[in-house]
């Protein structure tokens, strides 16, 4: 007993040691390993180890035709599946200079915003759960179910829809679509107040998130942290505003910006974005023009030789698609600039000198999706 008391405590605290967070850890939301160097419980540095779910999608794309590539993009960021499909379609349509019918633009935009809402709902659920509020998880998943039901009816699938195809969408919307979207928005507008009551104004939550994981605007730009995480640092990086596509140039919505630069700001951006997404859907849902749900496309799609780039705003940030075409029906090289990959790179920088418990909150506020990192 005497020996233990006489241990030089200061020496123990000075010593740095490493622990592995993951690859199986509830707060990494997938197979990501963080090697964390700790001094006491203070994070001194961390090294992410990726690749546990690397499937070589970019290599596979070089063997697939463009309509086939769409099915792989679902699997990159599965929570923004619609938005990823949209990126490929926009790129093909831009390269072939095809105008898609107005109806398609409306449907795609509504679907994108539904995807954004359900992605943020799941993010909110797991954020709450990571910080110990298990109720959040049940609330979020309960409400997300309504969107999955809407998708199931129209696209035939709940999760990985592959609903977009070059030139349009796979099939027309279900007759119930508008009615059910209305009913979802009506319900969710009431429910989202509960979200704020549980977490946003909660004292414990505020103490866990305010002033934690500071990311300045300059660093956000330098590290390429886009999406709600970048906008939480006051960086106006919304692709929907900067380079509008589909209907985003014609609807009114605010780009949500917060200037707190901390975990709480990134949280508030996403909460506010759900309101904005509902606002966009409300402007479009009653005005879907009649017409074809797809433009006429050739059976075999070949892009003219050249290089193309297409950006879209996925739920996590800027998704970029870089394609080198040699004129064949398969891309010569296809690169996905995924938002989570760049967002992960900043984790070491912003979690230094924070407590290891804060690392969980910071990681959750970046909203990482691991297949989006590994591809």
């Amino acid at each position, binding site marked *: 007993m005497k020996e233990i008391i006489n241990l030089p405590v200061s020496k123990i605290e000075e010593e740095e040691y490493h622990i592995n967070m993951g690859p199986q850890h509830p707060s990494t939301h997938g197979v990501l390993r963080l090697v964390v160097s700790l001094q006491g419980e203070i994070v001194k540095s961390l090294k992410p180890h990726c690749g546990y779910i690397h499937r070589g999608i970019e290599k596979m794309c070089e063997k697939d035709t463009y309509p086939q590539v769409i099915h792989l993009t679902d699997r990159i960021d599965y929570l923004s599946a619609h938005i990823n499909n949209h990126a490929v379609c926009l790129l093909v349509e831009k390269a072939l200079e095809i105008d898609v019918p107005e109806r398609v633009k409306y449907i795609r935009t509504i679907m994108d915003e539904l995807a954004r809402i359900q992605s943020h709902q799941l993010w909110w659920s797991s954020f709450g759960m990571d910080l110990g509020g298990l109720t959040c998880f049940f609330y979020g998943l309960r409400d997300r179910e309504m969107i999955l039901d809407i998708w199931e009816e129209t696209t035939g699938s709940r999760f990985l829809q592959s609903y977009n195809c070059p030139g349009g969408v796979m099939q027309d919307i279900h007759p119930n679509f508008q009615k059910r979207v209305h009913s979802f928005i009506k319900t969710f507008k009431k429910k989202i107040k509960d979200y704020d009551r549980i977490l946003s104004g909660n004292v414990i939550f505020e103490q866990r998130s305010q002033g934690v994981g500071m990311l300045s605007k300059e660093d956000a730009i330098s590290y390429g942290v886009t999406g709600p995480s970048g906008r939480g640092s006051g960086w106006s990086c919304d692709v929907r505003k900067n380079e509008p596509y589909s209907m985003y140039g014609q609807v009114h919505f605010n780009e949500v910006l917060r200037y707190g630069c901390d975990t709480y700001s990134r949280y508030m951006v996403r909460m506010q974005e759900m309101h904005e997404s509902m606002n966009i859907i409300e402007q479009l849902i009653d005005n879907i023009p009649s017409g074809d749900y797809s433009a006429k496309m050739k059976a075999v799609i070949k892009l003219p030789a050249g290089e*193309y780039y297409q950006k879209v705003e996925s739920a996590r940030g800027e998704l970029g698609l870089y394609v080198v075409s040699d004129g064949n029906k398969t891309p010569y090289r296809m690169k996905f600039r995924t938002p989570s990959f760049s967002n992960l790179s900043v984790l070491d920088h912003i979690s230094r000198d924070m407590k290891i418990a804060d690392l969980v909150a910071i990681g959750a506020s970046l909203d990482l999706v691991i297949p989006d990192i*590994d591809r």
Partner: protein
Amino acid sequence: MDNDSLKARILEIVPDVQQEENKQYLTLVVPAGRLHDLAGELRNTPDLGFDFLFCLSGVDYGKQLAVVYHLNSTAHKHSIVIKVKTDDRVNPAFDTVCDIWRTAEFHERETYDMFGIRFNNHPDLRRIFLDEEWKGYPLRKDYADEVNIVEF
């Protein structure tokens, strides 16, 4: 700044650039030796202000290996594409730009992992997705893997 004046400004900094045809972005191939200087100028000159490296990709053009930098200025809202190419397929190497844009650190590791292109002065150049023991660079066109890649 529009594409013509951007090109004129860059020709002032690096005289021997080649323009490639691209409908969307001004695309310039610069000599590999001048890459780091040019990158610093692009980032730090106020009227250019390319502070956001939004994509960094490796490309295997068959004979040549290339690295493609997509740059954007958040203040001036203009974009540009810079390419560097090398004929050396055994020991391809370029200077790192991760001291200029921090996001390049991970992207360069990925390019090294998939194409075997080394980046001089990179602080932590290791494979990022594949095992350290992995043989070859999968995204190169001459990569062969009879076990995992099934040819139809």
